[in-house]
């Protein structure tokens, strides 16, 4: 009843092509964004911010990055963890080498470093396709992690082999490092993800995104109508790695505080791929939904037995968690292979007819 578009006339191409053509959507998203900036920093406690909301935002950014590559350009990649590691280590090197540099600028620069590495590892995609490419990107994953492990220059010769986020302030507010408060880190992550999600949404609506989708749907046909496969695929790898790089830098600077290469191993690549698939391939909103699912489910599984008064041994609970997690993934793939974004779309269609479906 409330969700009706009757009476909303589009009188220009601009309004017809808007991201949210329906006024209710515009209002909802606008209010939700404002609420996301205001409510959690004031209302949520340290645990919620640190364990749920901050990782959710960072993983969303990484999932958007992978979705651009896998969902829109159709290039299956298992090297996400490696590219995130590049971002994290680049940010660490940059900010320790040039301490006065604004930390936001550092994030963007480390994204660019990750993008250039992504370009190099994207070159095989010109010859190799499908699962062969997926396995080839694992080469990037293992090589990069090995490199950061082996060369002490990357960790500034720290004997522990870890990188630690130093205190960095912007306009007098400490954004990163041990002295940064959780609300401040949350707002920083949120601001970055809002900006980059908007950028990504516009990218995929435009010429670049359309050429990606053309390559994804049928690469030879795309080539014939004038899409250059070399440029398009490399661009997808570059931009996707940029997003992953920024997310990797945030992961260390805004979430973990300090990390070693173990944090970026192949499990992380699979985790981000799960977010993209569960959320929905080729959907920016899906990246958020998938990240929320993957962050929330383990927390729910950990806390569920206690709330119903069951006290299981730690090992058993870990195993049950693993089983339920695996089972849930299969279940969701069977129920809706197109992901949570598709479920959202269906419920919106239903809502338009409610309460009088014909």
């Amino acid at each position, binding site marked *: 009843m409330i969700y009706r578009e009757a009476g909303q006339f589009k009188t220009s191409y601009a309004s017809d092509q808007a991201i949210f053509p329906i006024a209710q959507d515009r209002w909802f998203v606008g209010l939700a964004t404002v609420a996301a900036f205001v409510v959690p920093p004031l209302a949520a406690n340290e645990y919620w911010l640190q364990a749920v909301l901050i990782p959710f935002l960072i993983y969303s950014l990484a999932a958007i990055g992978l979705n651009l590559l896998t969902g829109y350009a159709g290039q299956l990649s298992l090297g996400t963890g490696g590219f995130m590691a590049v971002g994290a280590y680049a940010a660490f090197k940059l900010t320790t080498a040039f301490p006065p540099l604004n930390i936001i600028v550092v994030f963007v620069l480390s994204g660019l470093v990750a993008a250039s590495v992504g370009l190099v590892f994207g070159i095989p995609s010109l010859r190799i396709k499908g699962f062969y490419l997926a*396995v080839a990107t694992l*080469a990037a994953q293992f090589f990069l992690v*090995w490199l950061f492990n082996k060369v002490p220059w990357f960790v500034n010769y720290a004997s522990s082999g870890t990188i630690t986020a130093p205190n960095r302030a912007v306009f007098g507010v400490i954004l990163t490092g041990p002295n940064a408060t959780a609300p401040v880190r949350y707002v920083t992550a949120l601001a970055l993800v809002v900006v980059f999600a908007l950028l990504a949404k516009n990218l995929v609506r435009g010429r670049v995104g359309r050429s990606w989708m053309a390559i994804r749907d049928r690469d030879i046909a795309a080539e014939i109508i004038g899409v250059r496969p070399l440029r398009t695929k490399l661009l997808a790898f570059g931009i996707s790695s940029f997003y992953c790089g920024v997310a990797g830098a945030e992961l260390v600077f805004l979430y973990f505080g300090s990390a070693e290469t173990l944090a970026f191993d192949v499990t992380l690549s699979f985790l981000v791929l799960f977010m993209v*698939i569960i959320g929905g391939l080729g959907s920016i909103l899906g990246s958020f939904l998938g990240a929320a699912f993957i962050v929330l489910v383990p927390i729910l599984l950990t806390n569920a037995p206690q709330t119903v008064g069951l006290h299981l041994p730690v090992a058993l609970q870990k195993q049950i968690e693993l089983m339920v997690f695996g089972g849930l993934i299969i279940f969701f793939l*069977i129920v809706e292979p197109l992901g949570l974004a598709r479920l959202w779309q269906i419920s919106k269609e239903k809502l338009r007819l409610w309460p009088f479906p014909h």
Partner: protein
Amino acid sequence: MTELLYGVAVAPFKDMVGSPAFFVEVLTGGVFAGLMYSLVALGFVLIFKASGVFNFAQGAMVLFAALTLVGLLERGVPVVAALLGTTAVMIALAWIIERLVLRPLVNQEHIILFMATIGLTFFLEGFGEMVWGANVKKLDIGIPDRSFIVAGVQINELELSAAVTAAILVAVLAVFFHRTRVGRALRAVADDHEAALSIGIPLKTIWMIVWSVAGIVAIVAGIMWGAKSGVQFSLSLVALKALPVLILGGFTSVPGAVVGGLIIGVGEKVGEVYWGPLVGGAIENWFAYVVALAFLLVRPQGLFGERIIERV
């Protein structure tokens, strides 16, 4: 600079020629390691060939098979009965997977099926440990881990038996695929699902058979890997070791899995021994992938893979 060039291009070969016995030893070590990889890669190839599913859970199946076997042996079941029991469990597993995972996902995109097998990996890892316990177990089926020396080259008895087993397994599979009725049906399904269905080949039964065979291959791989390094959680990671073998040999080729395994095994050992020290060692993790990648740039379908024909 010249020093580096010397280290990369001259010194390793000088070492190889300098002590041929050691070089042969490295080579045989590589061959054995490669056969172990092939054993895991075989399971992947079987399933991919017949159902187009890239089964990431093969590693977890190896772990699960080994855990089941050890669990049965620990409870005092005789070896033969334990082997039969494990086979029965793997066949039951194949049936359950076909019923609950593959059938509802028929006709979905490859990537969806791939993700489902990753979900299956999590499930099997959790389930196997819940039933059989998480601590490292020793798998002893009577093959001694001794070494003997032939013509100055040290040969490990366990590795030798693994090699022989792998050879027998490949031969049996080759006969099974080319000489039996079921094998012919399998090849037909691999060629074209719909055409196979239309001439009356029951797709569901075929898939169950393939997953069962892959399960039995997983038992063999589990025994060999388990005897070598103990049955533990990390066993499921051998899947990651088998992937470069797979892309090198081609996803659809049984001989490719063996030859690819040998190339990767030998390349890895030789690279680690002769070039590894130059970059600080531990290059085993990614070296195989880089070798495979280099091959792929020349032949995108792998060594023995089916020719990729592009249609618009």
